[in-house]
């Protein structure tokens, strides 16, 4: 059996007056899709920051395999309706390369590939400001894919989308997971999506955690904040 991409071992972390986790241990197998579930303020984003190395644990260890390459898709962007760049130009921003304005042939190929992987080729000349919520999320995804990661963290990627678009986006993520072998950590409030599209879930509640396969998830026994959280999201 190959080693898990990520091993979190007896992790403890808290801010000065607010302990968040004690003794948190879990693994993300290579090529798995995992949901990170929890109510607001329970420390989902903090856990992501720990995984990204922006914060240091108080105790315990976070170990990645040596070949891990992270692609992170953050939750909020500032893309207003007058945002001028096309989807392709927006995605391309993540090619830092040699720093000069002109792009190499190789970079153009990589851009084409990322747009193809996210089914954005036909929409690539649309201004981001006019793109739909789903197209924007796909563009964020494509931007993260440009650096060819093997581990993708999606932070509330479906939060502001309608039901059909959520399903479509998750279908795409699942497809990337299967075709590229990406390991995915999907931060969400949405129990239904977590159950339908991911293999396992990590539920954070104050002082506790639970790591299980999603086919063992019983939505009825989940914390109430999470069940109501879904409606709140839909209202956005």
């Amino acid at each position, binding site marked *: 059996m190959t080693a898990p991409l990520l091993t979190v071992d007896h992790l403890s972390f808290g801010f000065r007056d607010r302990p968040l986790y004690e003794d948190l241990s879990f693994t993300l197998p290579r090529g798995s899709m995992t949901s990170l579930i929890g109510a607001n303020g329970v420390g989902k984003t903090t856990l992501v920051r720990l995984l990204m190395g922006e914060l240091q644990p108080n105790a315990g260890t976070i170990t990645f395999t040596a070949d891990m390459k992270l692609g992170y898709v953050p939750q909020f962007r500032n893309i207003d309706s007058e945002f*001028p760049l096309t989807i392709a130009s927006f995605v391309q921003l993540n090619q830092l390369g040699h720093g000069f304005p002109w792009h190499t042939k190789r970079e153009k190929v990589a851009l084409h590939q990322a747009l193809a992987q996210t089914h954005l080729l036909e929409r690539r000349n649309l201004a981001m400001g006019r793109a739909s919520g789903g197209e924007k999320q796909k563009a964020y995804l494509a931007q993260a894919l440009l650096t060819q990661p093997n581990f993708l963290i999606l932070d509330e990627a479906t939060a502001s989308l309608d039901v059909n678009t959520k399903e479509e986006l998750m279908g795409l993520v699942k497809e990337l997971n299967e075709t590229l072998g990406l390991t995915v950590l999907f931060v969400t409030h949405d129990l239904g999506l977590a159950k339908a599209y991911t293999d396992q879930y990590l539920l954070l509640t104050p002082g506790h955690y639970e790591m299980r396969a999603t086919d063992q998830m019983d939505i009825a026994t989940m914390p109430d904040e999470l069940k109501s959280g879904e409606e709140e999201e839909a209202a956005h």
Partner: protein
Amino acid sequence: MFTYDFMQNAWLAATFIAITTGIVGVFVTARGMSFLAHTLSEVGFAGAAFAVFVAIRPLDGMLLFTILASLTVGKLSVKQSRREASISAVSSVFIGLGILFLSLSNESSSYATTILFGSIIGISRQDVWQLVALAAGVLLTMGFGYRKLAFDSFDAVGARAQGVRGNWISIYFLLILAISVSIGAQIVGSLLVFILLTLPPSVAKYLGRTLPQMLVISVAAGLIGVWAGLALGYLTNWPVTFFIAAIEFVFYFIALGVHRLRD
């Protein structure tokens, strides 16, 4: 009109100014820093007044003050929420200083008018070369850091997620902006330099779809404005600044109209 030295100087200077402000301005609008560009032009006024007071060249005084002010603002307003208040605070103290220096140096009010509104006949060949050198410096520096600056300007959140360090880029860009304001003020004056830093880029924002397109449109809108402004100023003897402002204003509304029509 090109038989006059002062017109040749003005054309050369205006050309380099329009190129620089056109390019820098695209990033100014993308970063939402139009207000700061306006403030820095007021700071430039104080710098020029200070230069008169201590008898150095106005451009040097402007550079000194705008660079100091942009670093101060950068220090004060790393937090977005504090930005407007700290910019206003910096702005007011510098306008006050400008008035003080002008008064202390006993210069006539016509000199103040020249600083504020610009003058095409005041530019010597030596000034032109200094402008060209500064403009080339700004553009070369931007060329090296172009990709990171573009990422941070158009998608700051995405850039941070990819490990691009936003704070350094902010400071680097503030310096570029400070120098651009100082050189731009030489033709249109410190009060109106922000026209060149905001209107051509806004035209580009409405018409361009990729960053290279935006840069070309912005520079073109700036160049047409300053060239036509200089020619009309020469022919009518009305202030060049007025023509530049009017032309850029018209461009802006045409671009806005085109943008609306596309919807």
